[in-house]
C-alpha cells in the first residue's frame, strides 16, 4: 500500500521536475538568446520579441519549482534532508540566479537608457545561464551517487562538482538553448515577424547540433568516470526515454532546417522531457542511487495519501484553469494587428 502511493508520489515528483525543466527551459532559453544576441538593430528586434514572449509569465514558472520542493519534503523527507545537506552550494547559486533573473527582468522595464538596459540584460542573461546549469547539476550529483543519506560522507565540493554533475549541467544548458530557440520560432510566427522566424530558426538548428555534440561528450565522460551511472541510464527503465531523446533531437533540427513548421515545439518538449525521464526512470527504484529507495524514504502512508489528493486537485482544478489562461493569452495574440 505505502509502496504504491510512494511510487505514485515519486512519479508526480518526476513530472513536476519535468514540467519545470520544460516551462523553465523555455524561459531560461529565451534569456540565453537575449544575452547572445549582441548589439545590432536585428538584436534589438530579437530582444523585443523575447520580452514580448516572456511578459505573461510573472514568475509563475516558480510554481513548478515550489511544487517539486514541497512534494519532496513531504513525500520523501529523508531524501530532501540528504540532498540539501550535500548539495546546498548548488541550490544556493541556482536560487540566487533565479532571483537576480526575476529582479533584472522587471528592472529592465523600469529603467530606461540604453546603457542601463544593456547592463541589466547582461545580469539577466548570466543568471539565465546559471540557474538551469546548477539545478541540473544537482540532478547529476544525485545520479552520481555522491549524495549520502542524512549527512554528506564525502566533502560537499566533491558531491557537488564531479563529472556527472557538470555533464548534466552542460547538457541542460544546451537543451535550454534548444527549447528556447524552438519556442521563439513559434512566437515569431505568432507575431508574424518573418525575419525573426528565420533568425531563431537558424539558432534552433545550431543549438540542435550543439545539444547532440555536448550530449555525446557528456555520455562519454560519464562512461569513463562513472560506469555504473552510464549503465543505469542506458539499460533498464530509462532506456526508451534515452532512445527517444537521441532520435527526436535530430528530427527537430531537421524539421526546422527544412522549414517544416509543424510538431517542432511538441517534439522539443518531448526531447527535454525524455532527458529528465531518462534520468528519473534510469535510477529508479533508487532516489539516491545504491543508498535510498523510494520505499525506504517514503513518508508514512497518511502523508502519501494526502499528496495524492493534492495531485488530484491539481489535475481537476488547475489544468482547466491553466487551459483557460493559455487560451486567453494565445487568442489575444492572434487577434492583435502587427505593431
Amino acid at each position, binding site marked *: 500500500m505505502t509502496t504504491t502511493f510512494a511510487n505514485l508520489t515519486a512519479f508526480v515528483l518526476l513530472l513536476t521536475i519535468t514540467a519545470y525543466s520544460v516551462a523553465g527551459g523555455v524561459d531560461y532559453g529565451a534569456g540565453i538568446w537575449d544575452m547572445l544576441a549582441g548589439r545590432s538593430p536585428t538584436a534589438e528586434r530579437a530582444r523585443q520579441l523575447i520580452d514580448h514572449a516572456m511578459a505573461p509569465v510573472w*514568475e509563475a514558472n516558480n510554481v513548478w519549482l515550489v511544487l517539486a*520542493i514541497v512534494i519532496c519534503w513531504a513525500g520523501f523527507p529523508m531524501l530532501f534532508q540528504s540532498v540539501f545537506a550535500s548539495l546546498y552550494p548548488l541550490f544556493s547559486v541556482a536560487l540566487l540566479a533565479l*532571483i537576480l533573473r526575476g529582479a533584472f527582468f*522587471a528592472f529592465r522595464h523600469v529603467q530606461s537608457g540604453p546603457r542601463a538596459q544593456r547592463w541589466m540584460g547582461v545580469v539577466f542573461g548570466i543568471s539565465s545561464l546559471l540557474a538551469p546549469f546548477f539545478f541540473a547539476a544537482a540532478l547529476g550529483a544525485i545520479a552520481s551517487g555522491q549524495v549520502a543519506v*542524512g549527512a554528506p560522507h564525502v566533502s560537499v565540493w566533491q558531491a557537488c562538482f564531479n563529472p556527472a554533475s557538470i555533464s548534466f549541467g552542460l547538457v541542460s544548458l544546451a537543451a535550454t538553448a534548444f527549447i528556447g530557440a524552438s519556442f521563439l520560432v513559434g512566437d515569431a510566427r505568432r507575431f508574424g515577424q518573418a525575419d525573426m522566424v528565420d533568425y531563431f530558426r537558424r539558432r534552433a538548428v545550431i543549438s540542435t547540433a550543439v545539444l547532440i555534440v555536448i550530449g555525446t561528450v557528456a555520455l562519454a565522460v560519464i562512461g569513463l568516470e562513472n560506469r555504473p551511472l552510464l549503465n543505469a541510464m542506458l539499460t533498464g527503465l530509462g532506456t526508451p526515454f534515452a532512445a527517444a531523446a537521441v532520435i527526436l533531437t535530430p528530427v527537430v533540427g531537421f524539421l526546422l532546417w527544412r522549414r517544416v513548421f509543424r510538431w517542432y515545439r511538441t517534439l522539443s518538449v518531448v526531447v527535454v522531457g525524455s532527458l529528465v525521464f531518462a534520468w528519473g526512470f534510469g535510477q529508479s527504484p533508487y532516489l539516491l542511487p545504491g543508498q535510498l529507495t523510494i520505499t525506504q524514504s517514503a513518508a508514512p502512508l497518511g*502523508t502519501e495519501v494526502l499528496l495524492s489528493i493534492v495531485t488530484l486537485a*491539481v489535475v481537476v482544478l488547475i489544468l482547466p484553469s491553466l487551459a483557460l489562461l493559455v487560451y486567453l493569452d494565445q487568442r489575444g495574440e492572434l487577434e*492583435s494587428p502587427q505593431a
Partner: protein
Amino acid sequence: MHLLTLVAAESALLPSRIQMAFTLAYHVILVPLGVAFPAYTLLMEGIGIFKKDAAAIRIARRWSVVMAVQFAVGAVTGTILSFEFGILWPKLMGRFGAALGMGFAIEGLAFFLEAIFIGIYLYGWTRLRPRTHFLLGLALPPAGVLGTVSVLATNAFMNTPGGVTLGSSGEVTSVDVLGALFTRALAYEFWHFLIAIYITAGFIVASIYAVAWLRGRRDHYQRLAFAIPFTVAALLTPVELVVGDLSARALVADQPAKFAAMEVTWKTRSHNPEVIGGLLTDSGQVNFGLSIPSFDSILIGLSPDTVAPGLTSVPATARPTIAEANITHLAFDAMVGLGSAGVALALWYFVVLMYRRRLPQSRWFYGAASLAGIGSYAAVEAGWATTEVGRQPWIVYNLMRVSDAVTSAPGAVVWSMLSVLIVVYAAFAVIAVTLLLRLAGRWRREDAIDTPGAPEAGVPYGPPSERLAADAPGRVKQGISGTVQVIIAAVLALLGLGIVIALVIALSLVGLGAAARRFIGRFTRSSST
C-alpha cells in the same frame, strides 16, 4: 574533527536565524496584498458592475495591476523561502517533513491557483464579459485563504505539534493527516492572522487615498477608493481584538513559556501585574515599564486569583533567553498597542459616519488614517515576532531545537548568502516602489485630462500594452461563447467557495470552540478554588 564540525554548525546558527527572519519578515509584507487585496478589488469591481459605477471599475482594474506586480515579487520571495527550509534547516524537514510538509503541499496547490487566476483576471479585463470576469475573480480570495490556512497549519504544528507517532529515535513513524494539519494552535492562529491581513490590506490601500485627500484630491474616485477598504478594515478591528485576546489566553495552556515571555512574568503566581513596556533583567526583575496590579491575572481568568505561568516554571534550557523574552514582550506590547489604536480610529470613523452621515472631514482623521497602513504592517510584523521568538529555543515546540535543525554548512556560506539576499531584496523594493509610483503618476495625469488608458501599460507582467491599445471599447472579443464563459466561471467559483466553506466550518468547530472551552474551564476552575 568532531569539535571542528561542532564549531562550524554553531557558527551557521546565527546567520541562518537572521536570514530566515529577514526573508520571512519581507515576505509577510506581500501577504496582505496577495491574500486580502484581491477581495477588496473584487468588492470594488462588484460595486462597479452592479451599481454601474465607471470609477469603481477603473479603481478595480488599476488595483489588479498592483496585485500583479506584488505577486511577481511574492512568487520569488516565496520560492526562496521554500528553498531555505532545505538550505538552512535540512534536519527539520528530514525529521518532520512528513507532517510539516503537508500544509506546504496544499499551499503549493493554492499558490498555483492564485498564479493562474491572477493571470486570468489581468487578461480578462478586455477579453471577458464583465460578469464572467467578476465571477472568475471570485476564485482569488478562496485560493488566498487556502494558502493562508495551509501555511499556518505548518506554523501551528511547530507551535503545538500533534497527529504524529514518534519512533524510538524521534522519527515520525505514522501520520494522522487531519490531526497533524489541524493542530490546536491552528484555529486561533488562522483567524488571528487572516483578519490581521485583511485589516492591513484595507488600511494600507486606504492610507494611499488618505494621503491623496490631504493633498486636496477629494472627488468621487478618491472617496470611493478610500471608503470601501477603510470601512471593511475598520469593521474588522474590534473582531481582531477579541480573537487576539482568545489567542493569547490559549497560550497559557498551549505554550506557557511563550505567554510568560509576552508578559515578562518571572515566577508563576496569582495577582500577577500586567506590565506595559519594561525590560526583564537576568535576576528576574522588570525595570522601567508601567505595571497594572493583578491585571494580567484578571485578563487570563477574570479574577485576580488566577495563576499566571512564569518563565521559571520551565527549565532554563527549554525557555526563551532573557533577550528573547524581552523581544517577545516588547513585540507583543507593540502589537496590542497598535491594534488598540486601530480600534480607536475605527470608532472615530463610525461615530462620524453614524452621526454626520458622511465621511470624516477632519485633517487629523486623514492624518491618522494615512498612518494606519504602516501601523498595521508594524502590528503584523510584531505579532509574527511574538509567536516566533516566543517559541525559542524550539523549532518544533518541545520536540526539536532550532540548533538541532540547522544546516551543517559553514557559517561563512550562510553569511555570504544573507548579504547577497539583503542587496537583492533591497533592489526588489526599489523596483516595485519605482514601478508603482510611476504607474500612480501616470494614472493621475490620465485622470487630470480624463482619458484613462490601459492601466497595465508599462508593467512587466500582464498582457502586452500595444495589444491592449488595439482593444478599442467597441471591439468586444468574440472569444469563448458567453454560455461557456459563464459555466466555466460558475464551476470554478463554486469549487473555490466550497473549499473555503468547508475549511471555515472545520476550523470553527475544531478551533475557536476548543479555545473558548479552555477559557471557560479555566474561569470556572479559578473561581471554584
